[in-house]
């Protein structure tokens, strides 16, 4: 992507400044997010949003994605592909040190690529990575088995899997179980000062941060409340400054922002868009029929879900890609507007007429990890019963949902959620491809859908290095996904950040929750 290259070349300065005056230094920022405490401050293999939130204040990535979807440098000054796109040269930023004073070098990067990213954090995404060689102390060349699209590789490096961890601490140990993960040491603007389990983690300013003058904050505290109403109370009592990813109950948002003391910001989530989807188990004769799946989609009033369940903080999805994906999204896909009559007609045509009050019986499993899924499950039961289907609804807890949907495939129709990055491979595509079927592995193809044409399109996407052609391949993928509909998003969620109005320069990147927050400052 040429624009991305230009952004990389132009450097860090002036990239994401908001016009809010000169930043002030100092102060303590207390932040939280709409979920629970992490199991460990850093979970090498991922571990979900919570450890991602805590570890990214300490660990940084080579590059990051800005709110307008351009890459800009963090630890790397440049990432340049070779002519054939089979190798990439990474130039590291000079004079970067770890929190313990050791310099960041190309050795660290080689270690990350081969021993951390490929086997642990990125997994299949970096399957094609063959070798990583240090050319000089600040230059590394990554070599691949096949051509690798530039946007794809940069997305991986700017994504959740691309954190850069210190070789001198992890080398020779089991990275996943290393006790240092509870007090990670990185290159970031903040150092872990103290983690009080069950309460909070306190970070102190890294005075030797490579980006001179930053961070602006003296201290950063991330606290956890189990109860959303308690977070609202903490905001009102002045004991909480910022909360990402829906920290408070939706009805409270209007109440807090009406005081003008708080702002609700929806930017900062485009590279980790959340989606609520419906999945049809293809192992069941009835749901193998495309007409049945399409009929059921017509029977769902997505607008109702968006307005009522999410209080308007969601919108009906279209196709497999999310709306905030301005690079790959297309409107040119089959849509399933709410139409009960059409749904009934499709079911009749598919060979399932109403016999003694019911067409057929199905099991609906709504994954109970979000409160909204409970309501959606209850709504879908109603909606499907309106087209005369007998529904056996189950809303199991997290562990049981995972087992029923992704290990035992014990469902007919499932409601689940997933987060998707801008780059559709692999997070979005693995719901549709044959190699996405891995029994026991969650958040991928659990429906058993397999279509050679789909597999072929996705494998073309994986090696197409011309960005324009790649975009049209993604459109092709999206069209097929939407018309075959083995699994489709129902609504795109609109996550919201709540912040005190004197917290400045937050939400400026595509994935703010996972940024280091070096630029955030307090106007007090």
């Amino acid at each position: 992507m040429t624009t991305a290259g230009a952004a990389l070349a132009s450097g860090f300065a002036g990239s994401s400044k908001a016009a809010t005056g000169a930043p002030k230094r100092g102060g303590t920022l207390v932040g939280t997010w709409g979920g629970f405490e992490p199991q460990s401050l850093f979970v090498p293999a991922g571990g979900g949003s919570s450890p991602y939130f805590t570890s990214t204040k300490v660990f940084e990535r080579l590059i990051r994605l800005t709110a307008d979807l351009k890459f800009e440098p963090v630890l790397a000054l440049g990432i340049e592909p070779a002519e054939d796109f089979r190798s990439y040269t990474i130039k590291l930023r000079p004079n970067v040190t770890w929190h313990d004073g050791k310099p960041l070098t190309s050795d660290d990067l080689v270690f990350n690529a081969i021993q951390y990213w490929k086997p642990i954090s990125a997994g299949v995404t970096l399957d094609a990575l063959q070798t990583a060689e240090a050319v000089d102390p600040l230059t590394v060349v990554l070599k691949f088995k096949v051509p690798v699209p530039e946007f794809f590789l940069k997305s991986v490096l700017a994504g959740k899997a691309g954190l850069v961890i210190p070789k001198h601490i992890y080398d020779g140990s089991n990275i996943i179980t290393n006790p240092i993960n509870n007090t990670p040491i990185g290159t970031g603007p903040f150092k872990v000062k103290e983690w009080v389990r069950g309460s909070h983690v306190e970070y102190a300013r890294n005075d030797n941060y490579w980006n001179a003058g930053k961070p602006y904050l003296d201290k950063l505290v991330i606290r956890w409340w189990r109860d959303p109403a308690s977070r609202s109370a903490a905001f009102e009592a002045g004991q909480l400054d910022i909360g990402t990813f829906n920290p408070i109950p939706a009805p409270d948002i209007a109440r807090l922002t009406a005081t003008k003391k708080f702002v609700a910001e929806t930017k900062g989530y485009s590279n980790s868009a959340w989606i609520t989807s419906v999945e049809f188990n293809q192992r069941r004769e009835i749901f193998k029929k495309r007409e049945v799946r399409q009929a059921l989609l017509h029977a769902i009033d997505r607008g109702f879900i968006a307005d009522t369940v999410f209080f308007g903080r969601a919108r009906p999805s279209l196709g497999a890609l999310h709306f905030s994906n301005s690079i790959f999204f297309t409107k040119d896909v089959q849509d399933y507007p709410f139409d009960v009559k059409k749904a009934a007609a499709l079911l009749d045509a598919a060979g399932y007429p109403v016999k003694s009050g019911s067409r057929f019986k199905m099991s609906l499993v709504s994954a109970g990890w979000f409160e909204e899924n409970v309501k959606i499950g209850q709504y879908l039961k109603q909606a499907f019963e309106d087209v005369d289907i007998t529904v056996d609804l189950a809303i199991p807890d997290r562990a049981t949902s995972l087992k029923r949907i992704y290990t035992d495939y014990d469902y007919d129709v499932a409601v689940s959620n997933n987060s998707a990055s801008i780059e559709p491979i692999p997070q979005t595509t693995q719901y549709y491809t044959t190699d996405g079927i891995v029994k026991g592995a969650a958040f991928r193809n659990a429906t058993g859908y397999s279509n050679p044409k789909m597999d072929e399109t996705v494998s073309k996407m994986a090696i197409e290095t011309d960005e324009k052609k790649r975009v049209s391949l993604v459109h092709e993928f999206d069209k097929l996904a939407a018309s075959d509909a083995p699994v489709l998003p129902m609504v795109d969620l609109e996550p919201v950040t709540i912040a005190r109005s004197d917290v400045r320069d937050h939400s400026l990147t595509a994935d703010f929750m996972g940024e280091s927050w070096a630029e955030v400052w307090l106007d007090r």
Partner: protein
Amino acid sequence: MRRIIIRRLVQIIPLIFAVIVMNFVLIHLAPGSLFDVMTSEQQITDPKMLDQLRHTYGVDQPVSVQLAKYIWSVMRLDLGYSYRQNAPVFDVIMQQLPATLILMLAAIGIALLVGVTAGVLASIKVNTIWDNLISLGAVFFFAAPSFWLGIMMTVMFAVKLGWFPVGGMRTIGVDESAIGAVLDVMHHLVLPATALGLFYAATFARVMRASMLEVARLDFVRTARAKGLSGGRVVLAHVMRNAMLPIVTLLGLQLGTMLGGSVVIEAVFSWPGIGSLLFDSVMSRNFPMVLGVLVLGSLLVAVCNATVDLLYLRLDPRIKAR
């Protein structure tokens, strides 16, 4: 006295054993496993990596072997390792147990003080407006869910009036002297301990009132009055002391439920105790952690109950250690 202590200690061993076996079986009966939860969170899909993790977590062994290994390690005072927390179970619990203990002790203190006082007052002023008010209050605090009470108290005293912090156990980011730290914790403790304690205070008040009225009718009280003792002395030394016995019984019984009740209060006030730890561990089927908390919890309850029995002896020497 010594016999009762030794007997209690001996009884604890089969109790702990039963707690382990029962909970181990229960956790394994629940669908889903720690392995499912952790691999899904970490989005691990490489079959080789899955096998390696199965081996690391020890879930590739038969359940009976896992149980036997666990019992063996508990016998050596080792509660195992929690992969989810990436730390030994004992260490994680010990980081969070003190907070729960402080909360429970404070709540019991408030419950006893408020409950017993209210009960005594209601019995002295029986069938007056005082009695009615206390009974009404008792019904209210007994019926009000503690999380609701907690949130209401937060809204009132933390948000509107700003007298107390909204949550947590200490003011974060401030270095204080030892005395300052104690005061700080006490300041944070007031709301959660009150919210938790009032529920139990309600029970205590009802029981104390009934018990007081019953004892007040007995002959020895009449004798005491006949001897010409002052009203206050009769109530305190004769009626109350004897009326305390059911309260002590109740206290012993409720220690266990208080541990459960603190889970809710800890969630509302983000109190860094073992409540949320236990909740998370059950939800993620993290059985070493669940068992660890339950083993230590049952130990705690057993020790408290033994203490209650000793209290019995003090209050009524007619009860002999058998």
